[in-house]
């Protein structure tokens, strides 16, 4: 079943509204001291979690398209993915600016020294590669390689939640929940890959 161009536009506007509303919420929250008297640490975490949430949303689109038999939904993945990248950039920027005060040598040192930082950086670099090649031109230029490249999103879905879990001072329910959601979304694909395809043959 297809979607009318109008329906697609509505969905896309909805995605932009969601991403924008979360940014608006963040700005208001900082203004209203919602994150406490010093917002830096909580703000950094908020951006990281929001990036993860958009990542989960992109990974939810293909199961949704299947369940609702609306393959056209797949075309929304680019937009949701770009919002994920946007929030990942904010996360990185906030860390560099608000935590490290633009001490970039310290940033590099930490990335090299701390495994959890390395996972986060790798995730961001992969997202960068996906964002840069998320246009039609790259799709045509890269041909078959494009699809392989964009499977890297699964690598991000493994690395980024581990980065989050590893970063916290004490293991609590929230990072575990994020890891569980990522695992669920990936296991669904694995299950389909093993079972579903075998059955359809």
């Amino acid at each position, binding site marked *: 079943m297809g979607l009318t161009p109008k329906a697609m536009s509505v969905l896309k506007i909805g995605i932009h509204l969601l991403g924008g509303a979360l940014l608006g919420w963040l700005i208001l929250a900082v203004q209203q001291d919602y994150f406490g008297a*010093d917002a830096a640490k909580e703000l950094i975490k908020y951006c990281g979690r929001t990036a993860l949430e958009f990542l989960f949303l992109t990974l939810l689109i293909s199961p949704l398209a299947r369940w609702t038999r609306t393959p056209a939904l797949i075309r929304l993945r680019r937009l949701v993915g770009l919002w994920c990248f946007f929030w990942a950039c904010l996360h990185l920027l906030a860390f560099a600016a608000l935590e490290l005060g633009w001490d970039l040598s310290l940033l590099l040192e930490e990335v090299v020294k701390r495994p959890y930082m390395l996972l986060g950086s790798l995730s961001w670099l992969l997202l960068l590669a996906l964002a840069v090649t998320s246009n039609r031109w790259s799709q045509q230029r890269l041909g078959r390689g494009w699809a392989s490249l964009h499977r890297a999103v699964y690598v991000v879905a493994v690395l980024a939640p581990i980065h989050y879990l590893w970063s916290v001072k004490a293991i609590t329910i929230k990072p575990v929940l994020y890891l569980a*959601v990522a695992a669920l979304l990936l296991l669904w694909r694995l299950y389909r890959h093993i079972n579903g395809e075998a059955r359809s043959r």
Partner: protein
Amino acid sequence: MRNRSWQQPTEQEVTPESLFYSRRRVLKALGISAAALSLAPSASGALWDLFADTSSPPARRDPLNYQKPAAYRPDLPWTPEEKVIGYNNYYEFGLDKAAPKANAQGLQTSPWQVVIDGEVAKPMTLDVDELRKRFTLEERIYRFRCVEAWSMVIPWIGFELGALLKWVQPTSRARYVAFQTLYDPKQMPGQADGQFGSGIQFPYVEGLRLDEAMHPLSLLAVGVYGKTLPPQNGAPLRLVVPWKYGFKSIKSIVRIRLLEKQPPTTWNLAAPDEYGFYANVNPQVDHPRWSQASERVISSGGLLDVTRQPTLPFNGYADAVAGLYAGMDLRRSF
């Protein structure tokens, strides 16, 4: 909206709008609604309620009479009061920095009894009021360095822990001092959530070697910024050990016990390779997951006004306390 399960697709027309809402429903079912997860439980509700101040009015803080000994008045810019009392780690009241202020205002801090026992000649149970009256209170401007690599400068009001210990007379067997925070899940929602909610075991416990506890810098604080402590800062009685990471400075103390053997300490139990018993501020020994060589200063500046400064050995108190650790390998005994 039709109440249709999303696992069973039908051939029926699905309008984009209902699709949008069903996706929202899926997200909600999975618990990953983007905004919702980022909120403290106390702040959930309609969007326009998000920033409404739902916390109870601030706990009463009484003015204190105290001296201002010159020896403890270094020329350092104080962290503004609203940041000292609005940016706290106190897992008993929630995990993020704003949670303690939001959730702790109802803490019953009077009457408040402290049991002092163990290896002492004169075990006693004292009311905090008595302690405030018995000892001369001093305002001391101390650096405060959190293990999370941020720092403040705080005007504490209190008395020397050593003075209290001398009063109860430690026996010759006493080598360590153990401290315990109030355990009351009814008043402390973080304790009700248990270890899975907070990542640490309750009640919170800390400890010092007796010579560390007797050091004149070790303070039992009853106030900050001229008044009694607010609950989020550890009212009515907390420890302040300025040359150690902040988690050593245990809050809302109900028990002080002198011991022959080294007592267990909360963060050490949670992650022994990351948080040692000594936890002396040491720029040479990194936390396994972040550098301790420098720190973000919580100052009067705004969000974008970030100051990072080098961390000093023993948080700047090396001249006074380094002797306590002569001959020890501080990399091993971190």
